[in-house]
């Protein structure tokens, strides 16, 4: 069973906290069960290579992995790093080679590489190209698919002010997650299952990666306006009235917060169940792609009753959205260029130009590409 919408069932929004141009909205869990815990395992290599199942390799700087423990009977357990375990001594390597993005390392224990899991899902979309060998495509593409795909992102430590904002952020009681906005652009959502795990993982947000657009916004807007509601005080005559007005505006503001993240929370998503662990399911997802709006990729764990236990998202920038959208459209029309062009209201040549602009020129035969580029 796949999910079609990301919801925040079981969570409540608290008031936003702002520092510099970073705004964060805390998410508070109503009921803590403690049967799914997430711990952090740091890696200090320069870069890591992940060996995927299908003979492909994923290479990136990976600062840490998450270790997920769960209990099938729903009884509370402790998270990785707090239990007694033997320290394994390893040589000081510059490169780490890992097997798979998600790996079962013990009974009821799973290692996953946060966000890289989603990125890999994103990069692998329509990786093997077309089943039909159309004339226009290059030999390599028909034989091997897209070959080597890569995307550039910025590390959180490049986003000026994020580290300080995370440091001075006041974590609420029972807080398990946060909606992160940089320069008031919705950047990322991060949710875990247990408040203690959140406390531990809060600062790991600075080690995550963020898209080019966010980095731009971060340069452009250094200060944010306050996000306090305007109060209509005409009918307030007693402290009780004041309290009522406060409660009303509290719920209004929560709706507003929800609205600001609506491109993640209200959108339909395309998801894939990648792991089942007892009553929990791990999914990858991409929001329904819309060039006019923000688009996100991410990974999440849902409990069987629909409560969200883990969520981490990455916002795609415009080019990244366009690339994935193009691949999807091509796939929809069986990689037939003419049909695809028609569906996009373009000529075939301008579609080829568009393909080249997005960095996929190499999938076409050089002469066809050259002709198309010269024809315009």
């Amino acid at each position, binding site marked *: 069973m796949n999910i079609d919408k990301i919801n925040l069932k079981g969570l409540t929004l608290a008031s936003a906290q702002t520092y510099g141009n970073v705004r964060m909205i805390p998410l508070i869990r109503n009921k803590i069960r403690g049967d799914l815990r997430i711990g952090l395992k740091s890696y200090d290599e320069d870069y890591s290579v992940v060996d995927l199942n299908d003979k492909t390799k994923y290479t990136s700087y990976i600062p840490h992995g998450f270790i997920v423990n769960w209990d099938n009977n729903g009884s509370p357990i402790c998270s990785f790093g707090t239990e007694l375990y033997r320290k394994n001594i390893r040589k000081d390597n510059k490169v780490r080679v890992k097997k798979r993005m998600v790996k079962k390392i013990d009974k009821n224990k799973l290692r996953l590489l946060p966000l890289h899991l989603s990125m890999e899902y994103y990069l692998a979309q329509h990786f093997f190209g077309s089943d039909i060998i159309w004339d226009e495509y290059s030999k390599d593409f028909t034989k091997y698919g897209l070959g080597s795909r890569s995307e550039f992102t910025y590390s959180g430590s490049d986003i000026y002010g994020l580290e300080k904002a995370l440091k001075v952020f006041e974590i609420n009681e029972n807080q398990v997650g946060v909606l992160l906005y940089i320069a008031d652009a919705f950047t990322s959502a991060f949710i875990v299952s247990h408040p203690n795990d959140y406390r531990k993982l809060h600062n790991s947000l600075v080690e995550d990666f963020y898209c080019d657009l966010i980095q731009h916004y971060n340069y452009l807007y250094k200060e944010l306006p306050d996000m306090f509601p305007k109060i209509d005080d005409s009918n307030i005559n007693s*402290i009780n009235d004041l309290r009522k007005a406060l409660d009303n505006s509290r719920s209004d503001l929560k709706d507003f917060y929800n609205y600001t993240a609506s491109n993640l929370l209200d959108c339909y998503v395309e998801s894939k169940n990648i792991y089942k662990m007892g009553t929990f399911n791990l999914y990858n997802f991409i929001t329904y792609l819309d060039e006019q709006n923000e688009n996100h990729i991410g990974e999440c764990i849902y409990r069987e009753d629909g409560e969200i236990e883990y969520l981490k998202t990455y916002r795609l920038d415009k080019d990244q959205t366009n690339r994935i959208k193009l691949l999807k459209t091509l796939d929809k029309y069986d990689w037939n260029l003419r049909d695809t062009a028609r569906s996009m209201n373009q000529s075939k040549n301008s579609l080829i130009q568009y393909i080249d602009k997005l960095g996929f020129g190499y999938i076409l035969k050089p002469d066809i590409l050259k002709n198309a580029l010269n024809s315009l």
Partner: protein
Amino acid sequence: MDKERLNQIIKEDLLLFINACCTCTVQKEFYTNRYEQKMSLDFLHEYMLINYRTYYMRILAVNINQFNKTIIILNLLSNGKSTPPQLRFEENRLITSALYKLPANRVYKLFQKIRQSGINNRRTRAIVKNYLNNRKDLSFDIVKYRKKINSAVAHNHIKLDGEANDFLFSGYKSGRFKTELFESFRQAHFSKEAVYKLPYTVAEGFVKKHKINRSIFLDKIKSKMTLNEKLRSQELGNKKNIKIKIDLSKASLTKIALYALSLPYSRRKERLDELDNALNKAAKRIISKWNLGLGKVAAVLDCSYSMSGSSEKKRRPLAITLAGHYLLKNASSEYKAFWTTDVKKSLLLQAKGQSDLNTPFLDALEWKPEKIIILSDGYDNSFWRISDIIRIFKTKIEKRKRTGVVHFNPVFDAHELEPRRISDLVPTIGLRDSEDIPSLLPFADLGEYKESLSKLENFLNYCKERLMKQVLI
């Protein structure tokens, strides 16, 4: 500009500066770092020194923190030329009196700074010499602050009585001394036993030289410790199983609160009654000196994560809040505390959670107190701005003005050059030690817009006279 507006600006400048001087110690804070703090404070001092010289020196008499007093004295001494002739006498008296009220370590550090900044004039030399000659136990100071007094004496060409100069400049190599403490210091270089006749900090320096076991050292030296040193070494003593006896309630209120909060949760729980008693006693001691006469008081107390301070000021804002809680509890006829998080026992307090001032403030209003005192760092991230609530309460709900609201802020905000405000309708007062609450309460009234500059001037004059009368030299 008309005169009234001008006076208003002067008054605002003065209050801003006094507020900054009450809080800032150029230490790292939760939101701002050392450099930001230093830049802001240096600017304020320079601005005051150039524009309001007369007020600047009189502020020495106000209950600002010791750190800022030393900066004012240093600035005044380095700028003697610009003192108007008719005020020279007053300025000198103020500096001398302020020096006597400061603890010795601050003064000697100031003397060292005088040398480092190359200030050398007749007045400075006289003031330093006068201070040294009037110390009750100079030989003790000389042993304890050797380096600093050395630089003061050398820089100002002072000839001290007795063997002091020999001791300062030739040290233990110049042979036997008649002064007992000097002789002990000399002997301590050769004998283990003589070490224990020295002040704690000096003796500490010999521990490594003689390879003395730390536990034995601590046990033998504990009688030589000052009150604050004893308080600081309590946990060290516990680790080594050595009981360092101390009458907690004799220490200052904020220091006890700091000590209490430094204890781990379980230890605090064990010693709940003892700490509670000590805090109450210390609070009562302060109140007995002041005629506060507070009626029904509600305290809105912030214990959010930002009150945990910084690596340099660990839990200080929180300790000030806790101490303030005890002070107000003992000073008012009816009292209730409203914390930002759910605090059952105030001593088991922890700085965590979001700064939500809305809820406790509304709860406090409902209780209908005569006075509301808010202790917070001024960073509010609740749903509503606290200033909006205060505005609505003052303008719409409470038509006839009754409830007084005062905000005490233990944190200096370097960006705004003053402790962060929570509302324009409420005076914000900077606070370094909770003991200053009684003396700073009058400022709350002075901060109001309608109050005139002359009232503040009167207050400054009163402080000045009081200081000069207290210390007669």
